[in-house]
Structures are given as structure tokens and as C-alpha cells.
């Protein structure tokens, strides 16, 4: 394939041709016109001929010009300046007023009324504070978001995105240049490509009085009862004094038992100081230590000893550090259950098996992965998904996959698919599929979401999030519909009630939601009722989310009640809590639940509410019937050792087999899995879809092998502790952390050739493999990226050959790394180099001082003014057509100004005369015309005679035919011969006539011959 030959656009003054190659036709066609025209219009007079040729050339030029895609060019005169203002916490707050003043003063230097100002703020996220506009005259801040990080790159890109196309754009970045995320340099390249120059105004600072707690060093592992030594590394820019406080799992450690105070008073020298703190961990599991330095003041050596002066510290955010030590914790199992009676048989079985179960309800579930790692397995007893926050679910997933913890999930009416786990973070962790295939699914449910506007910052974000959560919680054959008020079509389905399927089309519809402000609930509730009534579903349910102010008629609620459709309502940030009345009524009268959301804290529970409510339609996944004994499917499994038959059950949650390495050990009706297990990442998971209580398993509790069954299952899932001794240390080097493992066998010899499988669980919820290599006898090392602030948990599993042939040593170990504060607070000076580079890339300036007048930000130099083009081919073509007709006119129509004047005069005269006058004048005109005709006849005779005599027309002759103007009496073809001498040879009209004469003469000559 060859690309067609193209030329760039051709600019000619205010006109631009997009396809200038066509213009080449002009000279060719002109040449043709000249050649052909010489012949065809040779009969015309000289001037007429040149005018005619000129017009034709012009017509051709215009038609070809029209083909060449002409555009009129309008060069913009406006300059738009977008300020990207760094609002992160590294910018001293004392500077902010100065920045605001700078922008306000800079606006005074705008040169034209059309000059624009826009504002984008940069922190963890970038936000547009004001779109570029001539009306914006000052810095504005509306919503800035978290200020714990700086993403200048994102802000610069946002600035480019809002840059108006019809103005020349300049960006001014006001920042210290310390970016902690994104890449400003990459954004600068994008700006360069778009022709946007970036000026930078560095915010300079240099903290001279600053104390940073750089690190808290603690051993990664310790034995119970051992005293460990913590080391606090504190860096001071100048000598200082302050209090040092250390906490263990959030409780202060008394560092100074002799005094009432819990803290040490420490004196810091300039530079790095290391302070040792001995502590004795009281309980097993991971211990989180935090060291906090509280500055008292700077220290100056005076004549009579040191004196405290000044404040010594500027940023307090960087005055803390954390560390974690794992203290051996064997046999700890966390049992999560809402009902102690339900979990009691399990707890008893575990206690009898010398495990150490700890019972909690879901609301006390550990909030961090580190806390969770205190346990070697977690047992969820009939727990629904909505009892766990998304973060807790993620932690649990990481706990299994990356930390090697065990998970046992037992059934009940609120568990598995009926407990909203479909679509949750844990779904993939389980060895069974929660969403059974069509053949096993009982009557499907139908859920309709009625979405009203959510008037709060990021309301749209939350609205979409909850809708997605609800859709995810449904199984693929359930029906879902989403309705909202849309300005373009009133109340309508964004997603008409239809099967969830793979959720992708429902989620696309959710992305399109615009959360219109519906004045009344009635149209949406009526439409929902009508469509829910028209479908076949077991359970029908509606969720309404609103601020509660649309109006509602009670009659519709009676219709819902009659149809057996429940409505649950979620009231979000109402204008007044009184607005909740209609939502409360709606739920009460139809048998739904009302959830008031009035605080930011409650807001976080929104997705849980939606998942829980979506479960209303999911009861179909529960099988209940006559008791039967599940069949044992895999007798060789470790968990089923010694168990050949199990007692009957009367209910379970319907699930399906999962592809892969999952092992189903028991099956129920139609081969549904009852019990299954597998290895997931580093951890092991057991799923038991019936329950361990008298509800569905009354015969189980009294079963002789009940203890054996559960001990084998829990112990199989638990993280193995192993017989080797590992000493783990971590060392942070810049953005990376080095993990060092020293391994000893139980007899104290160095352990070689061990095969380590290690994962790190990162603070953002993701995990990564860590490669651990042997670097010396019994010594292994690996490295991981630890650049984000937060806690990292490294988990290791190993297999090594034992001392005796065929013996295998297995085990696991863990270590934690913490980065307590954002990098935002690590920088002690501004990063001028980056800012300079950005200015250089885009051809901008590094602005010095704070004088906006001299900076002249709206100056035109260095900017390319954008050009707006409008296609004008139609206009050009129409003019060409007009001109073409004029060309014909030039040659065919005689225009005589005098005659036009006379005609106009007559016309004006006539308009003033009366009707009688008009008739008289008509008569006179008729008489005059008759006279003229007879005169012409005489003239013709004379002219013929003359022609015969001279055989040529007198070029100076003209027709005295009275005024013939445009639209007047057409000239006759056989015009009488000329009579009077013509004063001007160049008269175009006479040229035309003389041509006629010549033609006639030629004809007569031919005749005479």
C-alpha cells in the first residue's frame, strides 16, 4: 500500500488551503482558457475580450480554489495561563498566602480582556479549582484532597487537559519540585508536544531546624519471654532536646520507671543519634513498636552549660517511626462468629485438640495484616461478606495468599453465595465457585436500583461504587435494573431489568450514571414496579439511594406492598434529617430497611449496605430438605484421614466445583460440593458449605469424630511453624529493602540448600514474589521494593533436606517492614533541578523573586498563537458561479448607467403621478414607440445603403434606441444599423452590436457573391 502524495496546508494571508496540490491545476487551466478563448471570443472588442478572459481566469481560480479546501484563518489573540499550585504538605503553610497574593497580582498584568486564568492544585491527586476563564481573577480552593503526597505530573497533565484550544497556553508551576508520585518530566514532554510552555516559580525552603526519626530498628523475630533491644535512629539538623516515647501495640512503654513520665528526655547532637531501648514483649504474635520524638527546643552551649532556645523542629510529621517483631505464636486460631452458640462446638473441638482459638465477632476483626498474622488460621463461621469492609476482605486474601495463613469457611444461611461473597475479594480464595451454573440455580432474584443525586464531594464516585458493589454481589442469572433521572429523557432505565451476566454491560451502564436530581420518586417507582411486575423472579427487591427530598405519594407504596416487592432505602446527607421521613416510610411500608447515612464514617459502610441488600434476592442459593449423608469423594485426603462416613445434614449452600487444583472431599445433592480444599498462594483454604451447628448438622455435634474432623481440617489449613530456626532481618536501602535469612537446623547447624518461597504483602493490598537466594552457608538474601509508606509483611515458606536421608524440614517465618511517614516529609529542601529541567524542556522560564509584574505571565513572546479555521469552499464556489454568470453577462448584456438613471428617474416620476396621469403617459409612450419604430425602419434603409456602399460598419456608430437598461426591452437580433458616430470606441455594448453587424455583413457578402 502506498500512501497518497500530500502537501502540507498552504497559508495565504487570512486563507489557508488544506489540499494545495489542486492549485497546480490553475496555471494548466488558465493556459487552456487563453488558447481556447483566443478563438472563441476573438470577435469581441479588445477590452471586452480582456475583461472576459480575466473573469474566466478568476472563475477558474475560484473553482480550483474551492476544490483545494480553503479555510479562513482567525488568529487567536488570547493567552491562557494555568497555574499548577503545589498544595502538598511539604510546602510550608506560611507560604500559601504569598502564593495567593502572587496570583492575584499577576492577574493585573493580563493584556487583553480575553486573557484567561485557570487554577489546578497538586497534592496526592490533582484537581481543577477553576477552569481557564477571563472571569477568574484569583486563586480558589474548593476540594484539594489528601495532601500527604505530591503528584505534579498528574497536575500538569490536568492543566494540559483543560487548556483552551482557542488561546495560546502557558502553564506556571508553583512548587518545591519535590514530587513523590508521577513524573513531571514526562508531563513536560507532553506539554512540549502540545506547544504549551511551562514557567516555574520555585518555592524555596531549607529547613535548618529539623529533627527526623529516621528509623526504628527491631529484630524481625523473637522467642516468647525474650527481651529485645529497639534502636531509634534520629537525625537532627542542629543540637536539640526533646522527649522520646515508645509504644508497643499502641500502648506506651514506660521508658523512665523512676519518674511519673513515660518518656525519656533525650539530648540530640547534630547529625545521626542512635538510642537503644530494651523492651520485653508480653504476648505472642507480631508486636508493633512506634517511636515518637517530641521536640522541646534547640540546644545551645552557653557559658554556664547548655541552654534551650528556639524550637529545633519544623515538620512534626516526620517525627515517628515504626517496626514490627514477630514473637513465636504457635497454635493461635481466630474464630469469627456472630453467635457464640453457633461456634461453641467448633471452639470446644479445637480446645480439645490443643489449639488456641480466640473468638471474636466480625466488627472486631483485625484491621491490619500485621495483626491478622498473629494467627495461624482464621475460621469464619456463617459470616456474610457485608460484615467485613473491603479492606478487611483484602487483608484476609493477602493473609492467605501472601502470608501463608490458613482460612476455614463454614456454611450457614449467611455464608458463601447467600452471604454476598460472590464478587468479593475472597471469592477467588475459596476452593469452590460461589456462583453455581444455571442447572443448579433455583429461582433467580431481581434487584432494581433507584439512583438519586448524592450531593456531597465525590458523590458520583460513591454512587457508582455502591451500584457496582450491588451488581457484583448478584449471581449471573439474577436480574438487575438501574434507574435514574436524566435531564435528557426524564426518568429512565440506565440498565433495563436484565440478567447480570458477566456484569460488564451493567457496569458500563453504571459508568454512564449522571445522578440527576429527581424532583419526585413517583415516576421512577412506578416504572420500576411496572417492569418488576412484568418479569418472572423469585424475590424482587428495590434499593433507593437519595438525599430524601423528592416528593412521594403513598398510594404507590400500597401497590408495592400488594405486589410483594420490598424497598430498602439509603438516605445520604439530607438537607435536613426530616427529609428521611419519606425514605423511612418507603422502607417501613414495603418491608425493607432504612439506612441513614449522615457522617463520613457511615459513608464508608455504603458498599456493605448495598451488598447486604443485594443479598435479599439471593436466598435461592440455600438448599434445605430431608437429611442425607454427604458422600466422601476423596478418601485419601489428609483432612479426611480415618473418616469413612459422616452424619446426615439437612441443608447447605449451593456452590460449584472450581477448575484447577481444588480437591472436593465431600459431595451433596446433584454432586454439589459440601467440603473442598486447596492451596492458595502460600496459604491453604477449606470450605465447608453446610454448618457445624444443630441448624443443618444436628447429628454432627454429637458425632464421635466431630473433634477429629475439625482438628484435621483446621490443622491442615494452619500455617506450619516448622522445626528449623530462622533469624530474619530486614534492612532498608533507599526504596528497596533487603531481607536476610539465617537458617539453622534444630541441632544448631547451618541449614543449606533450602528452597524458599517468599511473598511480600504490600500496603496497597497487592502482593509480589520475593526471590530468595543462598549467598553463604546458611545465609539467604532477597530484595523487595518498599517505596510506598505503610507496612510490608514478608512471609517465607521453606523446604530443605534434613540431616537424615529422605527427611524434609519444612516451615515458615515472617517479618515486617514499615515506612511510617510519606516521602512528602523526607525532603528538607526544594528540588530546583527538576523545575529547571521542566522549564528548559518546554521553553519556559524559571521565575525568580515574587514580582508578578516583572514576570509578565501573559506576555506573548515564546507562544504560538492558535489559529481557528472555518471552511469557506461553499462561499468561494458560489462566488465562482456568480462570477461565471457575470462573465456571460459581461458579453451579453449592455449596461448603460445613463439609461439606468433615466429609467430610475421615470420610475420615480411615475410613482408620484396619479392614475389618470399614468394612462396619459402610457398613451404618450405608445405614440413615441410607434414613432421610434418608423424612424428605425428609415435608419435601417439608410444603413443598408451605406453598408452596400462601404462594405464595412462604422465602428463609431451607435444605436439610438432610447434607454435600454437591465430588464428593459430586449434588443432585437436584427438590430437596425448604426446611425450616429460613436464617441467612444471602447463602449462594450457597441462592441457587441458591431459583432452582430459583422456577422450580418458576412452573410450579405455571401449572398451578394
Amino acid at each position, binding site marked *: 500500500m502506498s500512501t497518497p502524495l500530500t502537501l502540507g496546508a498552504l497559508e495565504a494571508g487570512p486563507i489557508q488551503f488544506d489540499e494545495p496540490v489542486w492549485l497546480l491545476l490553475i496555471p494548466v487551466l488558465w493556459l487552456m482558457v487563453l488558447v481556447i478563448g483566443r478563438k472563441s471570443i476573438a470577435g469581441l472588442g479588445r477590452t471586452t475580450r480582456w475583461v472576459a478572459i480575466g473573469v474566466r481566469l478568476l472563475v477558474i481560480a475560484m473553482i480550483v480554489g474551492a476544490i483545494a479546501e480553503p479555510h479562513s484563518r482567525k488568529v487567536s489573540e488570547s493567552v491562557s495561563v494555568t497555574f499548577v499550585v503545589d498544595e502538598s504538605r511539604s510546602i510550608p503553610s506560611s507560604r500559601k498566602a504569598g502564593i495567593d497574593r502572587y496570583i492575584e497580582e499577576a492577574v493585573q498584568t493580563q493584556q487583553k480582556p480575553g486573557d484567561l486564568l485557570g487554577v489546578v492544585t497538586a497534592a496526592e491527586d490533582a484537581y481543577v479549582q*477553576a*477552569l481557564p*476563564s477571563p*472571569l*477568574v*481573577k*484569583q486563586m*480558589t480552593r*474548593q476540594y484539594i484532597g489528601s495532601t500527604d503526597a505530591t503528584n505534579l505530573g498528574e497536575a500538569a497533565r490536568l492543566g494540559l487537559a483543560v487548556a483552551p484550544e482557542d488561546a495560546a497556553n502557558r502553564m506556571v508551576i508553583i512548587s518545591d519540585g519535590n514530587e513523590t508520585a508521577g513524573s513531571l518530566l514526562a508531563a513536560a514532554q507532553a506539554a512540549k508536544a502540545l506547544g504549551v510552555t511551562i514557567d516555574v516559580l520555585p518555592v524555596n525552603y531549607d529547613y535548618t531546624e529539623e529533627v527526623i526519626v529516621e528509623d526504628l530498628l527491631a529484630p524481625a523475630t523473637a522467642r516468647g519471654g525474650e527481651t529485645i533491644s529497639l534502636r531509634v535512629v534520629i537525625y537532627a539538623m542542629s543540637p536539640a532536646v526533646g522527649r522520646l516515647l515508645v509504644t508497643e501495640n499502641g500502648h506506651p512503654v514506660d521508658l523512665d520507671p523512676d519518674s511519673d513520665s513515660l518518656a525519656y528526655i533525650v539530648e540530640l547532637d547534630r547529625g545521626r543519634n542512635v538510642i537503644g531501648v530494651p523492651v520485653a514483649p508480653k504476648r505472642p504474635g507480631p508486636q508493633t513498636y512506634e517511636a515518637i520524638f517530641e521536640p522541646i527546643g534547640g540546644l545551645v552551649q552557653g557559658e554556664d552549660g547548655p541552654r534551650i532556645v528556639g524550637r529545633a523542629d519544623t515538620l512534626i510529621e516526620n517525627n515517628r517511626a515504626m517496626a514490627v517483631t514477630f514473637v513465636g505464636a504457635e497454635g493461635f486460631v481466630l474464630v469469627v462468629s456472630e453467635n457464640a452458640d453457633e461456634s461453641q462446638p467448633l471452639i470446644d473441638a479445637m480446645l480439645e485438640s490443643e489449639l488456641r482459638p480466640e473468638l471474636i465477632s466480625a466488627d472486631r476483626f483485625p484491621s491490619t495484616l500485621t495483626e491478622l498474622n498473629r494467627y495461624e488460621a482464621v475460621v469464619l463461621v456463617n459470616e456474610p461478606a457485608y460484615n467485613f469492609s473491603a479492606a478487611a476482605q483484602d487483608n484476609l486474601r493477602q493473609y492467605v495468599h501472601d502470608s501463608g495463613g490458613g482460612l476455614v469457611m463454614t456454611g450457614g444461611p449467611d455464608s458463601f453465595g447467600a452471604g454476598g461473597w460472590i464478587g468479593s475479594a475472597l471469592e477467588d480464595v475459596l476452593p469452590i465457585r460461589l456462583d453455581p451454573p444455571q442447572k443448579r440455580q433455583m429461582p433467580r432474584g431481581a434487584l432494581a436500583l433507584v439512583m438519586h443525586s448524592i450531593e456531597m464531594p465525590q458523590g458520583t464516585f460513591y454512587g457508582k461504587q455502591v451500584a457496582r458493589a450491588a451488581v457484583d454481589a448478584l449471581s449471573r442469572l439474577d436480574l438487575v435494573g438501574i434507574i435514574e433521572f436524566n*435531564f*435528557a*429523557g*426524564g426518568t429512565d432505565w440506565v440498565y433495563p431489568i436484565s440478567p447480570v451476566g458477566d456484569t460488564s454491560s451493567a457496569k458500563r451502564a453504571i459508568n454512564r450514571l449522571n445522578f*440527576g*436530581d429527581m*424532583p*419526585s420518586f*413517583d*415516576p421512577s417507582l412506578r416504572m420500576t414496579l411496572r417492569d418488576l411486575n412484568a418479569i418472572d423472579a423469585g424475590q424482587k427487591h428495590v434499593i433507593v439511594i437519595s438525599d430524601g*427530598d423528592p*416528593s412521594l*405519594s403513598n*398510594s404507590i407504596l400500597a401497590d408495592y406492598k400488594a405486589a410483594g416487592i420490598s424497598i430498602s432505602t439509603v438516605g445520604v446527607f439530607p*438537607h*435536613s434529617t*426530616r*427529609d428521611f*421521613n*419519606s425514605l423511612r416510610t418507603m422502607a417501613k411500608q414495603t418491608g425493607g430497611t432504612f439506612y441513614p447515612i449522615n457522617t463520613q464514617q457511615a459513608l464508608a459502610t455504603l458498599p456493605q449496605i448495598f451488598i447486604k441488600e443485594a443479598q435479599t434476592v439471593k436466598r435461592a442459593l440455600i438448599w434445605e430438605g430431608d437429611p442425607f449423608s454427604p458422600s466422601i469423594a476423596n478418601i485419601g485426603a489428609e483432612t479426611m484421614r480415618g473418616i469413612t462416613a459422616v452424619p446426615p445434614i439437612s441443608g447447605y449452600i449451593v456452590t460449584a466445583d472450581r477448575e484447577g487444583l481444588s480437591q472436593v472431599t465431600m459431595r451433596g445433592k446433584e454432586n454439589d460440593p459440601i467440603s473442598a480444599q486447596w492451596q492458595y498462594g502460600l496459604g491453604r483454604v477449606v470450605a465447608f458449605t453446610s454448618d457445624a451447628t444443630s441448624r443443618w448438622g444436628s447429628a454432627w455435634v454429637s458425632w464421635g469424630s466431630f473433634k477429629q474432623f475439625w482438628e484435621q481440617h483446621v490443622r491442615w489449613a494452619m500455617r506450619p511453624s516448622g522445626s528449623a530456626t530462622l533469624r530474619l532481618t530486614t534492612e532498608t536501602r533507599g526504596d528497596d529493602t533487603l531481607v536476610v535469612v539465617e537458617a539453622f537446623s534444630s541441632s544448631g547447624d547451618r541449614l543449606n540448600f533450602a528452597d524458599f518461597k517468599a511473598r511480600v504483602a504490600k500496603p496497597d493490598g497487592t502482593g509480589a514474589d520475593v526471590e530468595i537466594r543462598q549467598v553463604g552457608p546458611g545465609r539467604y538474601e532477597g530484595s523487595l521494593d518498599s517505596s510506598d509508606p505503610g507496612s510490608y509483611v514478608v512471609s517465607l515458606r521453606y523446604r530443605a533436606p534434613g540431616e537424615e536421608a529422605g527427611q524434609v524440614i519444612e516451615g515458615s517465618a515472617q517479618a515486617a517492614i514499615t515506612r511510617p511517614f510519606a516521602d512528602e516529609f523526607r525532603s528538607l529542601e526544594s528540588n530546583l533541578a527538576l523545575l529547571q529541567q521542566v522549564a528548559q524542556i518546554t521553553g519556559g522560564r524559571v521565575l525568580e523573586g515574587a514580582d508578578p509584574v516583572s514576570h509578565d505571565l501573559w506576555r506573548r513572546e515564546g507562544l504560538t498563537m492558535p489559529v481557528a479555521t472555518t471552511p469557506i469552499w*461553499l*462561499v468561494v464556489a*458560489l*462566488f465562482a*458561479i*456568480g462570477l461565471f*454568470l*457575470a462573465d*456571460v*453577462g*459581461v458579453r*451579453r*448584456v449592455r449596461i448603460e448607467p445613463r439609461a439606468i438613471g433615466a429609467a430610475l428617474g421615470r420610475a420615480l416620476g411615475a410613482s408620484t403621478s396619479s392614475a389618470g396621469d399614468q394612462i396619459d403617459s402610457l398613451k404618450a409612450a405608445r405614440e413615441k414607440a410607434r414613432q421610434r419604430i418608423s424612424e428605425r425602419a428609415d435608419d435601417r434603409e439608410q444603413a443598408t445603403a451605406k453598408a452596400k456602399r462601404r462594405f464595412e460598419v462604422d465602428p463609431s456608430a451607435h444605436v439610438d434606441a432610447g434607454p435600454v437598461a*437591465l*430588464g428593459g426591452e430586449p434588443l432585437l437580433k436584427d438590430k437596425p444599423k448604426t446611425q450616429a458616430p460613436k464617441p467612444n470606441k471602447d463602449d462594450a455594448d457597441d462592441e457587441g452590436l458591431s459583432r452582430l453587424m459583422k456577422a450580418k455583413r458576412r452573410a450579405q457578402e455571401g449572398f451578394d457573391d
Partner: protein
Amino acid sequence: MRALSIARCPGRALIGASVLALALSACTEDSSDGGAIDVELTLGEVGRAPGQLVFPRAMTTHDGQLIVVDKTARIQRLDASTGAFIDGLRTPELTLGKPTGLCVAAHPTDPTRTALYVADTHYHRVLVYDLDADLGDDPSQPRAPMFTFGQYGEHAAEPGEFVYPTDIAVLHDGDGRVERIYVSEYGGNDRITIFDVSVDARGAPVFEPVRTFGSFGIAGEEGADEILFNRPQSLVIDHQRKELLVCDACNHRVGRFTLDGELIAWVGSPSDLSGEPGALRFPYSLVLLEDGTVLISEFGNSRVQHMDLRTGESLGIYGEPGRGPGQLAAPWGVEVIGATAYVLDSGNDRIIAFRSPVPAAGGDR
């Protein structure tokens, strides 16, 4: 022969060509039959700087200028021909919600002065500002009103108590003195309250509720002699015909009432949400024209409809839903100054001006 004479005459040819050009290039659609509005002017843009708007929700006019309140609770006076900011203020409180109704009328006690009545919807009251004074050069600065009246009252509350007041209309006597004030409200108490204004011993106005009419309900469910409203969103007084016009928004109709609250007629068809001419969908505001017809902004149909309320006949449709030029997104208000109509294109954060089919009714303040 005729064609020949045109061909011979370049003047006519040019005129013909230009007619052809117009036919080819210009949109020949008559904008009064729906479709995008033939825009004369677009005023305002999104933002919080003076002259910018964030979802404006009510508009009125005074002295050839526009007064607009938006979702930042800023009331701004704008030049109707340029959109330039003249002056403005913010209502004293805004966390619970922002005003949704504005009305310019005589000062409650002094017919020589002009006042701005603001329905401070979510604070259950009416604010009265002095419109002869400068409102202020920073519209984000809160300013206290001259007077307020109304307070919160639950359902079936006493007259003079409001749930959510939406709009105000003021009846003037022949001398331009305030005779009565009408306030509409929604929130379960959907009704209209009529206030008499008198002056107390200290010269301050006293707003005395004299009667209310209407109650919450769905159109079609009313009994004989019952007036049901479902969010009466705006009020206009036709001084010439002595009528009170009410946009009964969620019942999709406009009511004509005597000045004492007797129903004359309902216009619109609550059950027809088809969007056909003559049908209304969430009519949020209307403005009276010289010939007694009205322009109605339809929040639900995103358009302005020209209607004759005496016959219910639709005389024209202006606008269609959308974000483009001449398109509307959930318009909350419409006003006319001279021969120019202004529609408050709330969802697009702007005001669109177009040629009104009939000039504004005269004599209004």
C-alpha cells in the same frame, strides 16, 4: 424565458446564488418547533468566580438585568447583554441547602424602593434584600437580609410556617404598594400561603399569614373542590388578568388561580409525559408575555414551551436536551427582558438568550 432572463442578469444571479447558499448552509429548521435554540447569546460558565455559575436554580430580572442564584448560594446580578457580573452576595447559611426561588418586587413597606425576595428553601424562610443598594462586589461573602419571615413547621403546620418554600410572588396595588405576598412550598406541606403586609409601631414590616390553599397530593386523586399540589415550584402574578399562575412541577401542570386562591383551570396533562407539544413534564418556572401567553421552562423535557394558558394550546417549543449550543439540560427558569427570552440552562451552568416569540409583559417591576 424567466430562467433566461435571470441567467442574463448577473445581479439576479448573485441574489439567486446567495439564496441557494443560505439554503445549503444555514439551518432552515424553525427553532420554535423544538430542536436546538437559535441562540442570540450565551451567558455564564461553570465556576465560582464572579460571573460564573454552579448549577444556577432560580432567576429573575430587574431593570434589564438578570439576578441568578446558584448551588453555591450566591445571588449575582448580571448584565443581560454581556453576562458581566455587577454585584452579588451569598445567603447567610448554606450547609443545609440553597435557595430555589427569587422575586423582585416593591419593598414591603416603601413602594419607592425595590426589594429582592429569596426563598431560602432549606432554612424554611423568605429573605428580603434591599435591591436599591449595592449587593457587594464579592458574591461569595455572606450578607444579612433586611428582613426575614417564615419558620419551620411540620405537616399541617400553622400558616406562616414552612417546610420548603420554593417561590414568592408579590401583588402590587395601583400605586405599586405591596398588597399581598404569596409563598409556595413543598416537602409534604405542598401549598401556597398568602401574607398581608402591615407596618408595626417601629416602622418594621409585619408579614401576616391570612390564608393558605392547596395540600400535597397527586393530580387525579383530588376530590371535589380540592386543590392538590406536588411541589409547586414557582409563582407568577398576572396583574392585568388578576390571576395567580402556579407551576405544579411534580404533577406536570400549571394552575390558574384567582388572587384569592380559587382554581380557574389546570393546564397540562399529568399523565402524558410523552414530550408532545402541549404536554408538560416537571414545569419549573414560567414567565408572562405581553399578549398573556407564557413561556414555561420544563425541567423534565429540557425545553421551553410557549403556551396559551387560556386554551392550553402549545404555540412553540424551544430547545432540546443536550450539552451543545442551543441545547438545554434540566432548565430551572425562564425570564424575558424586552424581546429577548433568557432560559436558565441549569445543568449546563449557563443562561441562553433567544428571541422571544412575544415581548415581555409590561408594567412588571
